[in-house]
């Protein structure tokens, strides 16, 4: 029985399996407004992980029993496409998807200013089109862009990133291979500027001494993601203004 050594995941020169350094996040691509039918849509690629989010609303609540008189309710759905993983998935909605849906809802219940739309409902649907680690975080980033695209009030950008630890060296934005390694896989979602934590989730076990290191690495990763997301939003807003004549503004 061979022991997989940690050297596999982090070379002596400090390079990871895909050639990144420990503090570098994957190549990130952000797009907004690609689905016309939805009120808002966001698409995020982090490395090979691709997530697409659509937002509908605010609109009337579908189930009258769920109406809240002073704020909007959120309805979230997270799913991984059957073609997203290397082996075709048999089930679309499993327990993990339902749990992730709930986590996304709890994240955005804190970020969306729901008092502005009493008695309404906001739907957030996220689908992972290609899965290579950090699915939940890419989904949260995509949903954040979709909500901004829909003109729904948010306290701040919600940015999410994963992190882990190899031989006490924290690494940021782990891919699928690093996720299945022995180390922890830690997901963090924060409000970008105030660094308030909205989601703090780990599936594995790790020593408590590593926690601060991993958390700080994840916060730095989130800030890098925020830089790209902010630029995307600004470019899109400028592009929209350019196509509207001066009178209409």
């Amino acid at each position, binding site marked *: 029985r061979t022991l997989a050594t940690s050297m596999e995941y982090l070379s002596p020169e400090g390079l990871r399996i895909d050639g990144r350094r420990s503090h570098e996040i994957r190549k990130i691509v952000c797009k907004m*407004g690609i689905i016309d039918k939805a*009120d*808002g849509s966001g698409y995020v690629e982090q490395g090979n992980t691709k997530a697409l989010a659509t937002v509908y*609303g*605010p*609109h*009337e609540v579908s189930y009258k029993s769920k109406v809240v*008189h002073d704020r909007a309710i959120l309805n979230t759905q997270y799913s991984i496409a059957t073609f997203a993983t290397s082996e075709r998935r048999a089930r679309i909605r499993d327990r993990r998807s339902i749990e992730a849906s709930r986590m996304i809802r709890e994240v955005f219940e804190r970020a969306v*200013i729901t008092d502005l*739309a*009493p*008695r*309404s409902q906001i739907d957030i649907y996220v689908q992972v089109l290609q899965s290579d680690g950090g699915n939940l975080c890419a989904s949260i980033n995509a949903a954040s862009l979709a909500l*901004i*695209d*829909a*003109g*729904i*009030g*948010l*306290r*701040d*950008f919600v940015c999410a990133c994963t992190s882990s630890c190899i031989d006490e060296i924290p690494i940021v934005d782990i891919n699928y291979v690093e996720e299945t390694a022995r180390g922890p896989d830690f997901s963090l979602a924060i*409000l*970008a*500027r*105030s660094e308030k934590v909205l989601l703090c989730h780990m599936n594995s076990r790790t020593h408590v001494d590593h926690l601060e290191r991993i958390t700080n690495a994840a916060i730095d990763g989130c800030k890098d993601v925020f830089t790209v997301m*902010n630029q995307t*939003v*600004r470019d*899109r*807003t*400028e*592009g*929209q*203004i*350019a*196509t*509207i004549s*001066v*009178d*209409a*503004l």
Partner: protein
Amino acid sequence: MATEIVIGSLRPKPVVPPIDHSYQIVSPGDIITTDTGFMRGHGTYVEHDVIKSSVAGVVERVNRLICVRPLRTRYNGDVGDVVVGRIKEIGQKRWKVDTFSRLDSILMLSSVNLPGGVLRRRSAEDELMMREYFAEGDLISAEVQSLFGDGSLSLHTRSLKYGKLTRGCMVAVPPALVKRRKTHFHN
């Protein structure tokens, strides 16, 4: 018949006018001002005496009021707006109309013109005959009479120019692109 095929890369790119930097663009969480003399309007929120933006859009300053208007949002009605809506359902003495807003708009039975005179009292028969006037799926034009407390619109068709729309084609455009004008009916 021969078809002309244009390769995407050779198609002339649409001319986008140069960006006007006199507008201040903000994104959610941006600090608009730390001056406490301003009042906050739509699209902003206050945290620790600082006015921050909650949407991505353009900052509008009117005297001491600061708003941020997003460029793509649901229709926010105002009293006096002329709207086109589709009847969604029929309730007790009211129709629910879809106007692409946050909540369904309401058209009260007492706000429509019924045959037999303007000041006729609405009877129980009128209530049962509601589907004869407007059925589900009908397209109507109406004017916003007032706003309810939760922001939903109360419509009325108390004029000959409002009512059911027939024989035409509906084109849906984003609400942010429609300017408010004195008259919305054009021939």
